[in-house]
């Protein structure tokens, strides 16, 4: 009995001691706390509190009512969502543009980096790099204006060139053709981000051991063979990490490009989940419905991220998360 009591006592004593030590260190680190706690709270307010807003999706939310007065409707908003034909159209657009964006926007920067890595004239290499980063810094508003201008029917360079080459007799109305919209968005994105997205691959290539290339040269390997057997395997880990992260962001493709490049004529191809949420949720004041769309969007992207990470783990025994 006594020994048990004693044990319990020392246990309490010990935890009191660690507690004491914790507070003592806390006091010593008061400046560190003062420099971090306010900002962590900041993040909690602006990034975590909105998650509480997800409750709106399960209510018939009316802004005038307090939280306690809201009417709970269970999954009714989700049921309405899955019954709306427009939702499937919008989902199709979102998936189509994100998959095209992933396929092209992921592969081309790697090819670009590989080509750039083979350039021996340093001034040329630097010039191409500097200029290729430029569009990344320009807003989508301006890029949308530029794209519209380049594709315009009166004097847009794309149509001029197509006509000069004899592919078409009359200028193509690119911006009013729904079936072109996905490609226009994908290529605009590529134009904007190709250089920027190649930075990380170029950095990875700089880390490949130069001796490997020397050895390959002695063996008489051609440049293409060197790329295939040394450069690409050398940056394989980077390629995989970037791929997983892009898959995680697959469905959260944003809506800026679609908003800015779209117009009423191509809306059936341009509307994506975020825009749909915006139109219903804020435009029509259906907050609960709009939130349900947002939740669907987040859940799909989280599932995709875990899926991609799981596959990655299985094949490489590494994890990016």
């Amino acid at each position: 009995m006594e020994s048990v009591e004693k044990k319990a006592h020392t246990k309490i004593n010990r935890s009191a001691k660690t507690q004491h030590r914790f507070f003592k260190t806390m006091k010593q680190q008061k400046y560190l706390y003062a420099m971090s706690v306010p900002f962590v709270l900041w993040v909690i307010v602006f990034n975590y509190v909105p998650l509480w807003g997800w409750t709106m999706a399960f209510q018939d939310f009316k802004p005038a009512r307090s939280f306690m007065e809201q009417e709970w409707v269970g999954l009714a908003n989700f049921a309405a969502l899955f019954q709306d034909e427009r939702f499937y159209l919008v989902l199709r657009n979102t998936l189509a543009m994100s998959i095209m964006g992933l396929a092209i926007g992921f592969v081309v920067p790697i090819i670009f980096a590989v080509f750039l890595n083979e350039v021996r004239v340093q001034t040329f290499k630097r010039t191409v790099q500097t200029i290729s980063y430029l569009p990344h810094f320009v807003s989508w508003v301006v890029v949308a204006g530029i794209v519209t201008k380049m594709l315009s029917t009166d004097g847009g360079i794309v149509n001029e060139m197509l006509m000069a080459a004899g592919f078409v007799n009359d200028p193509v109305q690119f911006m009013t053709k729904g079936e072109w919209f996905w490609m226009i968005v994908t290529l605009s994105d590529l134009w904007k981000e190709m250089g920027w997205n190649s930075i990380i691959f170029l950095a990875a290539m700089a880390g490949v051991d130069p001796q490997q290339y020397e050895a390959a040269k002695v063996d008489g390997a051609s440049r293409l063979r060197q790329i295939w057997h040394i450069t690409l395997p050398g940056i394989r880990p980077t390629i995989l990490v970037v791929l997983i992260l892009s898959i995680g962001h697959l469905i959260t493709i944003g809506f800026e490009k679609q908003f800015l490049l779209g117009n009423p004529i191509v809306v059936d191809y341009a509307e994506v989940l975020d825009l749909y949420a915006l139109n219903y949720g804020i435009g029509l004041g259906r907050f609960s419905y709009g939130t349900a769309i947002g939740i669907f969007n987040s859940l799909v992207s989280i599932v995709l991220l875990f899926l991609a990470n799981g596959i990655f783990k299985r094949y490489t025994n590494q994890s990016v998360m």
Partner: protein
Amino acid sequence: MKGSRKGWDDRLFDIINYSFLTVVLLVTLYPFLNVLAISLNESTDTVRGGITIFPREFTLTNYQTIFEYDNLITGFINSTLRTVIGTVLGVVSSAMVAFTLSRADFQGRKAFSTVLVLTLYFSGGLIPGYMLMRDLQLIDTFWVYVLPGMVNAFNIIIVRSFMDGLPFALQESAKMDGANDFAIFWRIILPLCTPVLATIALFIAVGQWNSWFDTYLYNSSNPSLTTLQFELMKILQNTTMGATDANAFRDAQGQEAASSVSPESIKMAISMVTIIPILLVYPFLQRFFVQGMTLGAVKS
């Protein structure tokens, strides 16, 4: 490595490679040069078409016209203000948090970095975000531009990985001299971090300067809070279909002045005004942001 020992397939590779990269260069540059040329070309002459990379009839009238437009001036001032204030707040807060997280002895390190890093993987979404701004009464204020995104996990990770590379001995010797943690941060660490702070300053500044959606969503009914990108967006949206008959600007401005300048020229001049400040800064910071991107990507 000598040129004479290059085989024919090596040469062929070089030819294809340099041609490909030159095409990339042209495709990237041409649109900018075209916009610049049109913005500097006499408006009625532009309508005739055929302007490529040089103005045919040089003029500054287009620029003069846009700077007579009140909303644009207000937009320019607000965009500048949000860029300056947003960048200062963002850099200072990121640097402070990053410093505490780079200290291995800091108790809060693990918990705090988890809270921050998780934000990279989820977001509450458009509508809950909107409701939060409404509840915080940030709608229809300037602060909605700078406060919500002030603390950004990605920037903190970049700064932190830079700080991790600094020798800890620096801090220890300062501590022996009796400096407190804030003094160490302010007087020793911060000056050493200039390159990485320049990097995130560029990221934040460009993000602020280029934003239009927050103006559209929160402040579109208040002209005194308009931004440059939002004004440009409104003008562009009226002409997305490539038609030249859109008169958004003309309507906004009254018939007289507009009769001399076409919306096309106006758009191009405003586009240039939004691009030029970026063009002026970014080449000088290139070395830093390449470093920063690499560090950030490796860590996250």
